[in-house]
């Protein structure tokens, strides 16, 4: 190693030390999480040069709301230069894990947190519904654009009991539609996913056989069909395989222009998936004190049957006062200004009663 190179190294180490010193002295930047300190190291020179008082928040979790969160945090950073939020879409399970282990400042999950997981986090957890979405059934049937599926039909299809599109149980709900004599090819998620959790939770709520068979989970033992990775895998499969049917998130289906089936709800009405019908489902469920509300099978004539909240996980109490304040302010913004952006990205804005309740919870963070 030449002397010049060595001197550079020494300089950069010194710079790094200076930067870290600056951070800890002013308590400006989070150093508790690996990612944040990595970020501080990468931007060592600017931090050392001009001591800003930016608070870096790091969060990770669910991929389903990731586009919306990304937009929120970007807009918020522009409006409020003192707080920078970094959100990584790593999946609900990983998000919970990182949050519980203290590697992130907040987590995000489509399946909230189980009681066990909350216990692991020493009960220092707030579950905050931030937005909601629905799960839709998309299909590939030539010339059929408004398929209706009864509860009996779609549960039967995913149980592998209904094998052909011309089955009487499907035909009954679609008078006047000529259903082809074609094998049904069921597509489900191969990877663990919050979307699967929401979907299987609904199937278990409406079908006894599903409840006692595959059950509810981020990945279950599917009785039929092929598995694909991610929404994009399912979308590609459905697009290329005539006779395919699978479930994807509403926002993804809208953006990739996939056909969506109308599903029979609890009151026996066939409801097309829209933001309004999903909002109606949310309104049908009372939010409990811990804010872990499952919309497994909503009441109401206009409710679309498969919808769910998605949660941000925050601590009730942060060790770092600056961080607590930053989390509080960011989440408050997301629950007020941020909600106005939801619909444009095909996410369901929180009903105002729910938003008020969540805001009150955010206020209790200290």
């Amino acid at each position, binding site marked *: 190693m030449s002397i010049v190179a060595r001197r550079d190294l020494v300089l950069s180490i010194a710079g790094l030390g200076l930067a870290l010193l600056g951070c800890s002295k002013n308590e400006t930047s989070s150093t508790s999480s690996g990612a944040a300190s990595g970020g501080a190291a990468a931007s060592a020179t600017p931090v050392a040069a001009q001591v800003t008082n930016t608070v870096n928040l790091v969060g990770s979790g669910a991929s389903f709301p990731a586009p919306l969160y990304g937009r929120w945090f970007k807009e918020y950073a522009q409006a409020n230069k003192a707080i920078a939020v970094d959100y990584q879409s790593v*999946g609900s*399970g990983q998000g919970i894990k990182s949050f519980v282990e203290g590697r992130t400042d907040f987590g995000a999950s489509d399946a909230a947190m189980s009681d066990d997981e909350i216990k692991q986090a020493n009960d220092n957890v707030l579950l905050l519904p931030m937005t909601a979405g629905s799960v839709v059934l998309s299909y590939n049937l030539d010339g059929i654009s408004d398929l209706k599926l009864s509860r009996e039909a779609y549960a039967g299809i995913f149980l592998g009991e209904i094998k052909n599109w011309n089955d009487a149980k499907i035909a009954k709900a679609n008078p006047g539609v000529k259903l082809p004599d074609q094998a049904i090819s069921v597509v489900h998620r*191969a*990877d663990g*996913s919050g979307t699967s959790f929401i979907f299987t939770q609904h199937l278990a709520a409406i079908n006894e056989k599903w409840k006692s068979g595959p*059950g509810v989970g981020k990945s279950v033992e599917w009785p039929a*069909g092929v598995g694909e990775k991610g929404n994009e895998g399912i979308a590609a*499969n459905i697009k290329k395989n005539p006779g395919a049917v699978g479930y994807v998130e509403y926002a993804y289906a809208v953006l990739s222009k996939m056909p969506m089936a109308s599903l029979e709800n609890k009151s026996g009405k066939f409801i097309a998936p829209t933001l309004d019908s999903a909002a109606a489902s949310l309104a049908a469920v009372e939010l409990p004190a811990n804010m872990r509300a499952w919309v497994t099978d909503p009441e109401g004539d206009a409710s679309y049957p498969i919808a769910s909240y998605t949660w941000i996980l925050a601590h009730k109490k942060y060790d770092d006062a600056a961080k607590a304040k930053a989390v509080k302010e960011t989440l408050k913004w997301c629950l007020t200004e941020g909600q106005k952006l939801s619909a444009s990205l095909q996410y369901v804005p929180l009903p105002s009663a729910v938003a008020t309740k969540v805001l009150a919870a955010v206020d209790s963070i200290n």
Partner: protein
Amino acid sequence: MQAVEDRTGAGSAARRNSLKASASAFSPPSPFQRGFDVAFRGLSLALAGSVIALLLGIVYQVMAHAAPAIRDLGTHFLVETKWNPNKQVFGVLPEIVGTLYTSCLALLGGGLLGVTTALVTSQGFLSRRWELVLKNVIELLAAIPSVVYGLWGIFVLIPILRPVAKVLHEQFAFIPLFETPFAGPAILPAALVLAVMILPTITAISREALAAVPKRLPAAAYGLGATRWEVIFRVVIPTASGGLFGALVLGLGRALGETMALAMLVGNANVYGWSLLSPGSTIAALLANHFPEAGPVEIRALMYAALVLLMMTLIVNLLGAAIMARATRGLKGLV
């Protein structure tokens, strides 16, 4: 061979001498030179050792993480057909079968194609120029990322296979190979893409093996009046069999561990059987799909599955090395 060794031995001795002569004349190496020598040798040894340490480290880590699952699930893991994290039931029989089935099919296709391509490009069937073109095109296949193969499978291969598979299923459903309807992603497209993916490995190594056959052997056979086919099948291929076999084993090793393209094409369904048209699963695809969202118990089971895959590739490679050693034993002194 003997002559060649002598020549290189003499050559390096000459080079050493000339080096010595050009360095400061005939003085013993300085302490710096000696230190440099020792340091360099130590560094080389340490780096070479670190490769072995790395492998052992990986095996140890996987085993350590898998240990609780091995204790809880035991060998039942290998014959259980369900993978259900909710009920804590884990088994990899469908994945083991799927891994071996797709890999062996791929080896059949890729091996046949690869070895014949190697023959065509090394035995003077084509002009030197076309040999080079063909060889380079096939080697380019190795540069295509796995995920691109997966996409190609989804968007090109499966639509091509669909009508064929439909006829096969409708007319020949009594043959177990075609007993299920074709759902798109399945064993057949997965194995075909895998065959293309292992083709460059097999072709390149087979070609080297065929080219390494001393020219005097076919020349002697021609001299005795053998035809070209007799020379290729009775002289060249038997002489190169060790290398050809090595190519197949390496190809199989690669097929066993291939992940992304398979995860995209095999259908990831926890079923197994003879049908080429039915979806299946492989261990590598199982790992890729389940790791990100797995809870602690499932992670242990996945580590166990990874260990099973590791053992499978290890056994294949050891078996390959053993058979290769046997096959080449009779050829000592020839090559």
